[in-house]
């Protein structure tokens, strides 16, 4: 599975290279109705880069297919885990949690302009604290509210930045 992942990434890079080359020729080049004296047309640089990328990505894919995947990052993560979290199921649980957190962050980003900064942030913080293991009800409610209001104060009143208002509030 792990090797499949690394091969997929390498393959996607090859696909990207092909896409860049095609897009340069098909979409960009024709729009240059003329080549202004001395200035090259706008599709050359991306085309050259696309070709270089194709060569490199192909080599990379070849290597990914032939050898074991580079798992240094995960090994480092596993090494830093304490004993009781190091079992395969423990690791899997953490990975799932990390993706759940990412999904929360994504939801937060998307909803910020609808719910407004305050509501979206309070929800995000409380949900995240809970997801990452906190059961301290004070932090989950007052803590996240306090942090939200502090950030809002610092950014809008001190720094004069504008934060999303939201449709509701």
């Amino acid at each position, binding site marked *: 599975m792990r090797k499949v992942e690394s091969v997929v990434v390498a393959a996607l890079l090859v696909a990207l290279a092909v896409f860049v080359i095609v897009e340069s020729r098909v979409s960009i080049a024709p729009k240059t109705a*003329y080549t*202004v*004296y*001395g200035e090259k047309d706008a599709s050359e640089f991306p085309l050259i880069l696309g070709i270089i990328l194709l060569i490199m990505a192909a080599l990379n894919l070849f290597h990914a297919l032939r050898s074991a995947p580079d798992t240094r990052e995960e090994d480092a993560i596993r090494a830093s885990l304490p004993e009781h979290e190091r079992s395969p199921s423990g690791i899997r649980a953490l990975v799932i949690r990390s993706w759940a957190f990412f999904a929360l962050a994504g939801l937060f980003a998307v909803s910020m302009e609808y719910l407004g900064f*305050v509501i979206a942030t309070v929800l995000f913080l409380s949900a995240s604290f809970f997801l990452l293991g906190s059961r301290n009800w*004070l932090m989950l409610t*007052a803590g996240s509210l306090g942090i939200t209001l502090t950030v809002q104060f610092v950014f*809008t009143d001190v720094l004069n930045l*504008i934060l999303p208002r939201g449709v509701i509030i």
Partner: protein
Amino acid sequence: MKRLLAILTLASLALCAGPALAAQKFPTRPVQVLFPFGPSVTYSVSQVAGEALSQELGQPVSVTSTPGAGGVKAALTVMNKAADGYTIFDGYVAPLVLAPLSGNAKYSHKDFKPLYAVASNAFALVCHKDETRWDDLPGFLKYMKENPGKIVYSSGQDFTLRNLVIVAMLKNEGVVGRKVTYQDATEMKDFLAKEFDVMVCNSGQYKTNKDSMRVLAVLSDQPSPEDGIPGPLPKDYGISLGLSGLAAVGWNWWVVRSDTPDDVVQVLREAMYRGMSNPETRKKIEFMGFSPLSPDTYSPESYDRICSDITDQLTDAVGAIEWMNEQVARLGM
């Protein structure tokens, strides 16, 4: 513990209620002006106007630089924000009139409700101080006629007013030159280093480098204001610029979304009128070499007429860009 929780809950409820109560009197929070280009001297002029508006409104006005697509990105961003008067578009002629004209934008100036205009600045065609190949504008044009494609000039990207105004004049005279495109301060550096021949510059650039420049012409049909760029006008030599009045110069008009409620717009207009009439504001703008536009002449009522007139004038000029590019391409082949 419970008391703390109760207090915090009450406090947050109060904070939520606050805006509801205050919503009666616009504005109750900072106003944002979207400036369509990157940081520059022109940006400072908008900041001066923003400061003046802020004084009159009683709320901070922040001018945010939102560059992209020649200013179109800022315009579209404003149109995507709520029509509540808290977002103003700093409408420079490029995104407001030129972009719709060239088909780069799907909106037009009619999609905005005007406040007041801020300032205008004329461009000037300048050459090196010690240039020996010609003495004045007619001499320069004669040299260009005799050496097609040899002159290299810099006037920014294709669909900017700076480029439009020079290309229109060159087409009228039937002369061809090569444009080199810059986007930042390296333009002036290369001009000073004599990498290319002539440049279309604005007053900020002129002021800081006037000892190395000679003005061939101020590209306008109105004489320059006191602090502006000194120099002859093309019509002094009997040469036609092809554009008159505001059409030849850069200018900006602050506008809001057209569906903004009238009472909100009224507040903004009154505040801006006072701000722009303030002699202090006008003086600051003049020092930068820009001409503050009188709020009496450039009022919301005149917006439509002026923009339409400029659109008509620029429509012919836009064709000159295509012409010049074709001519140069033909030479290079």
